[in-house]
């Protein structure tokens, strides 16, 4: 017979295996005394947890109940708030009309958490004038109570509640900034400043955030993250992200999933937590350290350092598994946010270019963008040869592609212009070579001087003057329309350069 206390402890410490867990369940099902032993053991575990947090100066979020008079009288919450305006050890609570309230010290963390939570779950139209701070807050709370009482037991709140508070950004530190978006739809739209413990759910599109210490994080929907307190870390609840740490201060940026901590050592990497019980890390440049969160790595090294072009999968079922290849397409490819890179750079023939996708055919957006791969047998390569260090031809695979039909193909790449770039002094130069069978070439909606008969573009370069005015810091997009008149796969070869131009001399 297994010792039930040992099984409970193994369960608490995540070291229980499947057989032991089944045994524990059986013991709990069959005897009420076992269940009470379980409850007491977990109460001890819970109490130790809270003791440790309190001892370290922290406050557990759930202690809001301690700020109420049992049984949870809301009026006590309100009274507490009102009576404590002048409490010495207090924290300001920012109300929409700009006034500040004070919340007593012992409850300040709870109130901060409560306000953040309420903000996330309510649409909060700004109260314009009129309402005094106290009346506004009281009314908001009372209406919230009424609305809650009218709602059924499911917790989805769809109506607009007149809750006129916003998260206490004055006391929750801003730990990151939303610096760019593209076609972004948020579950609850964030402000530009992102504060600790704020949860963000991007349901459509792309976005880019920058942590207080300079790490860039690319988000592709659907994804849910939560900013952590230290200003250089986030929790990835669901979905995929790409982390880019190019500055010294951003090193050490951490992504935490349910299974692992991924700590950047100066790199570009992707983390995928889209599937329950499974996390993947793909390193595109530099190194990361991976630390498993749970007992999923028995018998293997716990702190793994992954180098560029290495990928790992960690699951509760199979532990740690090194993957054969990184899959940048699943991250940066789909996300499509990269430094502006000429086509095919650094890739071998047959590899998909992570920077480019066919996103539409005949102007109709594709549900799944199509890859363009580096080709070494394209019919124009003899004229403009591939050079992996500068640019290569990318095209639909001529041997297998079904996309041979004529029509207008839209290729797209999304890239980041760093904040260090002076937009007033930069021009984007594009040198392009395209398939002879193309009768039209437009870049970002503008006609180019390419002509199928003149072939003038083959050896020339094109400077798009308006670019300095349309480029912006953060995410930019370049879109290329290729009009194909005969049934042959399309392909192109382009070199991009951000060229600094000196200001005119006076």
């Amino acid at each position, binding site marked *: 017979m297994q010792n039930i*206390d040992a099984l409970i*402890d*193994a*369960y608490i*410490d995540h*070291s*229980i295996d*499947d057989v032991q*867990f089944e045994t524990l*369940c059986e013991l*709990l*099902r069959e005897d*009420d005394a076992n*269940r*009470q032993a*379980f*409850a*007491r*053991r*977990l*109460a*001890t575990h*819970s*109490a130790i*947890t*809270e*003791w*440790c947090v309190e001892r*370290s100066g922290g406050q557990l*979020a*759930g*202690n*809001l*109940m*301690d700020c*109420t008079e*049992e*049984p*949870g*009288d*809301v009026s006590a919450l309100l009274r507490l708030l009102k009576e404590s305006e002048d409490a010495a050890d207090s924290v300001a609570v920012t109300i929409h009309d700009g006034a500040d309230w004070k919340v007593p010290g012992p409850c300040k963390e*709870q109130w901060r*958490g*409560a306000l953040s*939570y309420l903000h996330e779950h309510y649409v909060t139209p700004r109260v314009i004038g009129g309402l005094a701070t106290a009346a506004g807050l009281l009314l908001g709370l009372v209406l*919230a*109570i009424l609305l*809650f*009482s009218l709602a059924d*037991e499911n*917790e989805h709140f769809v109506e607009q509640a007149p809750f006129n508070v916003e998260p206490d950004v004055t006391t929750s530190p801003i730990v990151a900034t939303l610096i760019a978006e593209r076609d972004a739809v948020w579950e609850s739209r964030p402000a530009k400043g992102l504060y600790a413990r704020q949860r963000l759910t991007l349901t459509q599109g792309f976005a880019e955030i920058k942590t207080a210490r300079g790490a860039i994080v690319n988000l592709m929907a659907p994804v849910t993250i939560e900013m952590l307190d230290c200003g250089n870390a986030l929790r990835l*609840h669901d979905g995929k992200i790409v982390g880019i740490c190019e500055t010294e201060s951003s090193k050490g940026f951490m992504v935490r999933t*349910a299974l692992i901590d991924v700590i950047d050592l100066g790199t570009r990497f992707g983390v995928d937590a889209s599937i329950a*019980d499974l996390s993947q890390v793909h390193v595109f440049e530099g190194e990361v350290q991976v*630390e*498993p969160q749970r007992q999923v790595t028995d018998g293997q090294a*716990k*702190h793994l350092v992954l180098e560029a072009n290495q990928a790992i999968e960690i699951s*509760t*079922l199979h532990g740690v598994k090194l993957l054969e290849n990184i899959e940048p397409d699943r991250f940066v490819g789909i996300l499509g946010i990269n430094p502006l890179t000429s086509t095919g750079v650094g890739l071998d023939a047959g590899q998909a270019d992570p920077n480019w996708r066919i996103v539409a055919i005949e102007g109709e957006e594709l549900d799944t963008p199509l890859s363009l791969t580096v080709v070494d047998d394209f019919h124009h390569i003899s004229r403009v040869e591939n050079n992996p260090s500068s640019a290569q031809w990318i095209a639909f695979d001529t041997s297998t592609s079904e996309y041979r039909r004529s029509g207008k193909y839209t290729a797209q790449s999304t890239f980041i212009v760093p904040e260090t770039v002076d937009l007033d002094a930069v021009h984007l130069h594009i040198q392009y070579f395209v398939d002879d069978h193309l009768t039209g070439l437009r870049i970002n909606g503008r006609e180019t001087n390419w002509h199928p008969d003149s072939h003038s573009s083959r050896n020339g370069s094109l400077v798009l003057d308006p670019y300095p005015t349309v480029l912006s810091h953060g995410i930019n997009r370049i879109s290329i329309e290729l009009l194909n008149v005969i049934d042959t796969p399309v392909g192109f070869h382009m070199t991009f350069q951000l060229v600094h131009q000196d200001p005119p001399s006076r």
Partner: protein
Amino acid sequence: MKSRHMVAAFIRSLVRDEHYAEDVLQKVAINAATKFEQYDRDREFAYWLIGIAKRQVAQHFREFQRDRHTFDQTLVDQLVDAYAHVADELPEREVALKTCIGKLNERGREVIDLRYQQNLKPQQIAERVGTSPTAITSLLHRIRKSLEDCVGKQLAKMGGD
């Protein structure tokens, strides 16, 4: 407040990731406050509160299912009864526990710190202190047992006072 101890323990018994457990606890607290008008005062308050906790835990698992070692609904309901049964004794147990933690030796305090304050798993603790995960698992088990024994004695002493 006895109910909070019970609810916190109940949530942590189902949601083992401490960060997630805190989130759920937070939501339960807010729901309890805002839905208080729905509370039927003829019912045991602990049951009402733990009912909210149960729904929030279910909601959590719908959104963030990450743990394959989860109890089935029947067993969760049975555990609800068990928690309600022990709820009255939990506040005193917590007071006694604080005294007992203070009596742990240095090694015990170190391991408790690593396990709870730094939220490390036995494997990670083992690497930190230079021993095997099994030894840490065993040590944590002994520490909890000694704490519970100590709590029992403290409660007996308090009862005798």
